[in-house]
């Protein structure tokens, strides 16, 4: 699955210069960033989160995630967008809630991340 598929499923918008062909392997709906860091199977994941600050991109970077999607129409600040572009991290925003977006992506066959 690619970011373009996610974008279509969530009726989302790509923020900044993210590449729609970026591969997404799994998804994680989480607002506790330490929990995102908790397991090591976040590689190429899309992170669905209610947060919008800079550390969403930092954490995604640390775990080698592919994309961050901001929920309920939220948009991050320019500094976040700049950092994401620098790190090659794709940012999206959708009007859906984390719950609805998770349902949509599960339906498409995307799996969750394993936890310990």
């Amino acid at each position: 699955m690619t970011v373009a598929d996610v974008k279509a499923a969530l009726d989302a918008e790509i923020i900044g210069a993210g590449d729609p062909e970026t591969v997404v392997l799994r998804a994680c709906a989480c607002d506790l960033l330490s929990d995102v860091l908790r397991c090591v199977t976040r590689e190429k994941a899309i992170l669905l989160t209610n947060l919008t600050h800079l550390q969403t991109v930092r954490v995604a970077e640390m775990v080698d995630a592919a994309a961050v999607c901001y929920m309920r129409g939220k948009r991050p600040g320019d500094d976040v967008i700049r950092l994401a572009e620098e790190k090659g991290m794709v940012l999206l925003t959708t009007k859906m809630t984390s719950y609805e977006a998770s349902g949509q992506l599960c339906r498409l066959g995307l799996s969750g991340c394993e936890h310990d």
Partner: protein
Amino acid sequence: MNANHGDPGVVQLLGQELRIRDAMNRRVVTISSRTPMSELRPTLRAHRIAGIPVMDDGKLVGVISVEDMVNWITDGAVACPVAERMTRSPRALYADETLVHAINEFRKFGFFHFPVLDRDSGEVVGVVTREDVIQCLLKRLEIDYHEEGIRHYRASHIFEDIVADKSALLFHYYIIGQDFEKAGSSSSGLKKTLQRLGIHPDIVRRVAIATYEAEMNTVIYARTGELIAKVDTNQIRVEIEDFGPGIPDIAAALKPGFSTAPDWVRNLGFGAGMGLGNIQNCADEMNITSTVGKGIHLEITIAINKERVKYETKKDR
């Protein structure tokens, strides 16, 4: 803290293939031995350099360093020419010698910089510092990374050429407390460096996660901190020292869910009492000590398991 602490940026890592001319700074600032010591400081400062070759009539006669100047000031700053305070008959390196040689010379003499001479003409053609050597090696790695399309260097590869008995790369970062914007940039920098060194992605991720959690702890709770990563052929060892309130009861702090985080921290998605646990999960060894009112000293060791490290090229993808 260990002895490395007061020795930031010192790197002992070598390449047989690279020559000193690849690493040296060609903009050579020189000074005459007749220059008054009082004029030395502006010169050092203007060029942001630690030492200057002293040249008389096109010949290298000595080297004068920041340390020499500090000693001169300590001794009362009595007016005199550079000739009286410089190191005479200085050690110099030749531009065509290997970086391995430079590293060994740095170690042998404890110098931080050497003048570099052209072997044929004997002229000073550059100055090389320990930092120049590190920069050169890292830059070179990046070039190879692109040119050869090799995605992951074997971690051992960079160390294979090392002739010294013991070699390690040292990376030093400063962390500023309460600066939430900059938070994570040290871990990010370290992660990029480890990737460039060709450490296996799984190992890099574990180091990144552990250091990020430690860095966030420092940013949230402490005034300042330092992160030092030491990379050798067998392991990556990260030390984080912060200057802050410390942890009164480490055993309690290690329990999942334990947190003293204020609300602003929780609202940002941190401080749920998982940080130290995450570090423990990622590390092969973790050691934490703390003095209340002073700070925390955290050591993390992650082994580089050679068997698991792949040599992956573009066409494997």
